[in-house]
C-alpha cells in the first residue's frame, strides 16, 4: 500500500501514557505517527504507577467538587503551578476516567458496579480512581491496545528499541525531524517529521537509586536542552516518603497504603510514636509527599529514632482486615513479600523516602509547545501542572491529560504552523553523520573510568546534596563535583566494541546527558533561596547550618516576592554550564496563602 504523502507525520518519542494518548489523538485527527521507544511501549515506566488517578467523580456522598481538586493541586504545589493549566486538567479529569472505562481499564468497582474511590495525600475527599494497586499498568495497557489497533490500520509505525538521540532543525531553527539509533543493530537514521513530541518521562536515574525504571534517565530531555530547549523548575524533585530501600532500586510502596488506613510510626521511649498524626493532626498520615518525607528524614536522621538506628520507619497495615487489603492493595503487598520476605498483612513494612518524580522538566506553554518551534513535550518530561510538589495520583492524570493536549496541538502545528523549509536529504544526512561520528568516537574510548561506576558516584552526590534537605554550601560543592565528573567522563574506557546491542556504548552517551541534567537540577536549587514544596533549604550562619534555640534546623521561608516565579535554565554551549533566569506565570485564580497541613485547609 502506497503511503499517502499528504498526511501529516508526527514523531512521538516515548510510549508511556502521555505518548500513547498523543498518538491516539494524532491518528484520530488523520495524522500518521512514528513512535520511538527504548522498549516495547507496553513496558514503559507508566506501569509503575500504583495507587490511582485523581478525578472529581463525587460518587461517595462527600460533595467533592472540581474546584476542590483544583485548589488542592495548587495548594499542594505550593503555588508554583500555572493555574490556568491546572484548571484545564482537573476539569477534564472525570471525562478521561470515563474514556478509560470504555477502553477496558479494569478499575476496582463498588458493589453497585460503579468505580470505587479512595483517599490520597493532600486531599480530604475520596477522589482517587484505582485498579487495585496497579492503576498505571492497567491504564498503560488500555492505551497500548488502542495504539496497536491504529498500528493495524497503518497509521502508527513503531520504532521499539530505538533510542532518540537529537532533534534536527532546519535553517530557520524549526524542529523538522530527529536522529535515532536502533538499539539492537546500532543503525543510526534520520527521520523527517512535521512535529516532534517528546514524552520521555522523568530523570530519576540521575539520582541512581530511585523508584523509577532503569530507562528513566532524562537523557532525551538533556539532549534537547543542549540544543536550545529551556528546562523549567528542575530543582523540584519529588521524594516519595514510602519506598523499600534497595541497592539496585528503591521499590515504591504506594501512597494508597496510607489512603487505605496505613499508619507511619517508630518507637519512641519504648512506645509506638505515630509522628505524622501528631505533627499534622488535620491530615495525619495523608500529608503531601514533601511534608511526609521531611518528617521521616527528621525522625531518622536528626532524632536518631529510625528502626534499629537505621534509616527506616514502619508503614503499618497489619491492623486492617486482610481480605480488604487483598482486594485494594494486593499487587504491591505481594511485591513487598517477594522482595523483602515478610508479609505486610501481618508485620509492619519498613520503608524510607526515595527520589520518585520530577515536577520540573522541559518548559512548555499551555498547549505543550517548547521554546523551539515544532518541538513539543508531554508528560513527566515537561514541567507543567504540579508546581513545587505533586499530589499523589495527579501524575497519571497529568500524563493522560497532557497527551490529549499535545496530540491535537501537534496536528495543528503540522497544518498551520510557520514551519519554514523542508529538510533536504543533505541536511538529514549531515545530522545522521554527526551522530554517527559521536558514536564511533565513544567506541574508541580507552580511558580508565567505568561509566556505571561514574553513574553510581553521581547518584551518591545528588542524594547527598540535592535531596530532602539542601543548603548552599552543599549545592556549591555538588556543582564543582559534577563538573569533575563531566571531565572524568572523557576518560571512560569501553570494553564492548560490538555492533550488536552495544548497551555499554549507549549508556556512555546517556551518562553525559545525565551529568548535564544533574547540573541543571543543582544550579536551579542553588539559585532558589527559599523553601517551597519539595525544595527545602537550610539557612546558613557563618557558613554553618543554623539551628534555633531548641536545636532544630532553621529553614528558609517561602519568598513569594522573589521566587513565585518559574526557574528557567538555558544551556551555555561554551562553558556547558546551566544559566538560570526566572519567568512569571499565571496565578490569577487562587490567591497564594501559607501552606500548613497541621490545620484544615482554608480557601
Amino acid at each position: 500500500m502506497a503511503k499517502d504523502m499528504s498526511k501529516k507525520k508526527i514523531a512521538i518519542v516515548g510510549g508511556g501514557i502521555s505518548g500513547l494518548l498523543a498518538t491516539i489523538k494524532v491518528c484520530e485527527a488523520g495524522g500518521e505517527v512514528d513512535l520511538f521507544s527504548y522498549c516495547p511501549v507496553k513496558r514503559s515506566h507508566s506501569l509503575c504507577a500504583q495507587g490511582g488517578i485523581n478525578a472529581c467523580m463525587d460518587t461517595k456522598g462527600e460533595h467533592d467538587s472540581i474546584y476542590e481538586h483544583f485548589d488542592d493541586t495548587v495548594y499542594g504545589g505550593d503555588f508554583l503551578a500555572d493555574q490556568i493549566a491546572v484548571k484545564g486538567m482537573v476539569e477534564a479529569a472525570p471525562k478521561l476516567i470515563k474514556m478509560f472505562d470504555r477502553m477496558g481499564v479494569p478499575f476496582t468497582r463498588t458493589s453497585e458496579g460503579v468505580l470505587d474511590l479512595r483517599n490520597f495525600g493532600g486531599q480530604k475527599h475520596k477522589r482517587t480512581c484505582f485498579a487495585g494497586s496497579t492503576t498505571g499498568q492497567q491504564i498503560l495497557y488500555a492505551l497500548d491496545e488502542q495504539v496497536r489497533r491504529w498500528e493495524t490500520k497503518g497509521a502508527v509505525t513503531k520504532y521499539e528499541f530505538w533510542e532518540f538521540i537529537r532533534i534536527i532543525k532546519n535553517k530557520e531553527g524549526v524542529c523538522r525531524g530527529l536522529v535515532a539509533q536502533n538499539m539492537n543493530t546500532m543503525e543510526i537514521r534520520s527521520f523527517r517529521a512535521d512535529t516532534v513530541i517528546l514524552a520521555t518521562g522523568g530523570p530519576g536515574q540521575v539520582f541512581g537509586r530511585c523508584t523509577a525504571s532503569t530507562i528513566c534517565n532524562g537523557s532525551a530531555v538533556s539532549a534537547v536542552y543542549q540544543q536550545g530547549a529551556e528546562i523549567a523548575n528542575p530543582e523540584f524533585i519529588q521524594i516519595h516518603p514510602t519506598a523499600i530501600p534497595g541497592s539496585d532500586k528503591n521499590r515504591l510502596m504506594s501512597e494508597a497504603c496510607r489512603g487505605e488506613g496505613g499508619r507511619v510510626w517508630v518507637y519512641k521511649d519504648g512506645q509506638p510514636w505515630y509522628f505524622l498524626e501528631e505533627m499534622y493532626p488535620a491530615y495525619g498520615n495523608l500529608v503531601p509527599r514533601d511534608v511526609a518525607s521531611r518528617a521521616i528524614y527528621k525522625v531518622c536522621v536528626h532524632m536518631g529514632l529510625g528502626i534499629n538506628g537505621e534509616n527506616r520507619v514502619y508503614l503499618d497495615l497489619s491492623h486492617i482486615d486482610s481480605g480488604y487489603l487483598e482486594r485494594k492493595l494486593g499487587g504491591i503487598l505481594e511485591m513487598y513479600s517477594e522482595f523483602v520476605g515478610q508479609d505486610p498483612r501481618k508485620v509492619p513494612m519498613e520503608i524510607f523516602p526515595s527520589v520518585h518524580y520530577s515536577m520540573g522538566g522541559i518548559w512548555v506553554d499551555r498547549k505543550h509547545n517548547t521554546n523551539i518551534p515544532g518541538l513539543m513535550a508531554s508528560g513527566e518530561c515537561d514541567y507543567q501542572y504540579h508546581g513545587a510538589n505533586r499530589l499523589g495520583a495527579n501524575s497519571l492524570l497529568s500524563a493522560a491529560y497532557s497527551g490529549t493536549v499535545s496530540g491535537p496541538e501537534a496536528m495543528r502545528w503540522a497544518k498551520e504552523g510557520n514551519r519554514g523549509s523542508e529538510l533536504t536529504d543533505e541536511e538529514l544526512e549531515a545530522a545522521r553523520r554527526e551522530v554517527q561520528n559521536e558514536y564511533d568516537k565513544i567506541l574508541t574510548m580507552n580511558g580508565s573510568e567505568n561509566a556505571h561506576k561514574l553513574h553510581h558516584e553521581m547518584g551518591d552526590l545528588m542524594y547527598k546534596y540535592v535531596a530532602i534537605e539542601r543548603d548552599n554550601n552543599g549545592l556549591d560543592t555538588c556543582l564543582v563535583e559534577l563538573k569533575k565528573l563531566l571531565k572524568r567522563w572523557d576518560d571512560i574506557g569501553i570494553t564492548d566494541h560490538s555492533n550488536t546491542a552495544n548497551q555499554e556504548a549507549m549508556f556512555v552517551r546517556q551518562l553525559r546527558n545525565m551529568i548535564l541534567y544533574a547540573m541543571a537540577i543543582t544550579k536551579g536549587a542553588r539559585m532558589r533561596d527559599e523553601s517551597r514544596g519539595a525544595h527545602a533549604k537550610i539557612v546558613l550562619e557563618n557558613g554553618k547550618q543554623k539551628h534555633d534555640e531548641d536545636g532544630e534546623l532553621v529553614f528558609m521561608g517561602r519568598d513569594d516576592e522573589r521566587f513565585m516565579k518559574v526557574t528557567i535554565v538555558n544551556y551555555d554551549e561554551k562553558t556547558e554550564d546551566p544559566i538560570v533566569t526566572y519567568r512569571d506565570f499565571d496565578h490569577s485564580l487562587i490567591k497564594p496563602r501559607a501552606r500548613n497541613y497541621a490545620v484544615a485547609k482554608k480557601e
Partner: protein
Amino acid sequence: MAEKKVRFIIERQDGPNEKPYNQEFDVDYRPGLNVVAALMEIQKNPVTVDGKKVAPVTWECNCLEKVCGACMMVINGVARQACCALVDEIQQPIHLQPARTFPVIRDLLIDRSVMFESLKKIMGWIELDGSWEVKDAPIQNPYTAQTAYEISHCMTCGCCPQSDFIGPAPTVQAYLFNLHPLGKFDAPKRLNALMEKGGITSCGNSQNCVEVCPKSIKLTTYLAQLNRDVNKQALRNIFNK
C-alpha cells in the same frame, strides 16, 4: 575474612547467528541480592573468574518490580523474571540462559515481537469509536471486573511457552476483551480468529503455562472456557451459513 561470592554461569552469544558459549563471573554477596542487581555489578566490572576482561553481559530490564515483563530469562533451567529472583532463594552456582523459545539477539537479550503480533491477531482491544466523550461508560458487574483485573496483569513476558500455537498469554487476552461490556460486541470475531491455524486447537493442554505464570493468572481455566466459547461459535457459524 574473604568476602562471600556468588558464582554465575552465563550462556552468552555475540549475535543472532553466533554460537553460544559459557562465561563465569563472581559477584560479591549482599543480603537481598537479585539476579538483575548481580548483572549490574558485572557491568561495573566485567571480568570473568579467569581474570579475563570481557564485554558486559547484555540483557533487558526496566522496572525491577516484576510489572514490566522485560527481564524474563532462564534461571537454573526455569523461565522467570530476573529482578525478583533472589540469590538467597536459588541454588548456586546460578545458571543464566536466554529464553530460546524466542530468537536470541545477544547474550540474554531476546526478540519477543511475535507476542505483540499475536495480540493483533486476536484483536486485543475494545473497538472504541474515539477517545472523545460519548456518555457514561456502562456499569460492570464487580465480580466479572475482578476476573478481568486478574487477566489484565499479563505483562507479555513470555514465560509461558510460545510454540506454533499463538501462545497462552495472547490467547487468554481474547477472553479478557470478550468479558468487557463493549468488548463482547466483537467476541465472534476473536473466537473465529482463534479457530485458525495456530489458534486454540493447537493448545496441547500441557498445563505448563499456568505453572510458570509469574502473575499466577489461571491461564488453563480461561483457556478451557475460551475453548468452549470457540466451539459454540463454530456451531453458530454452521447454523448461520
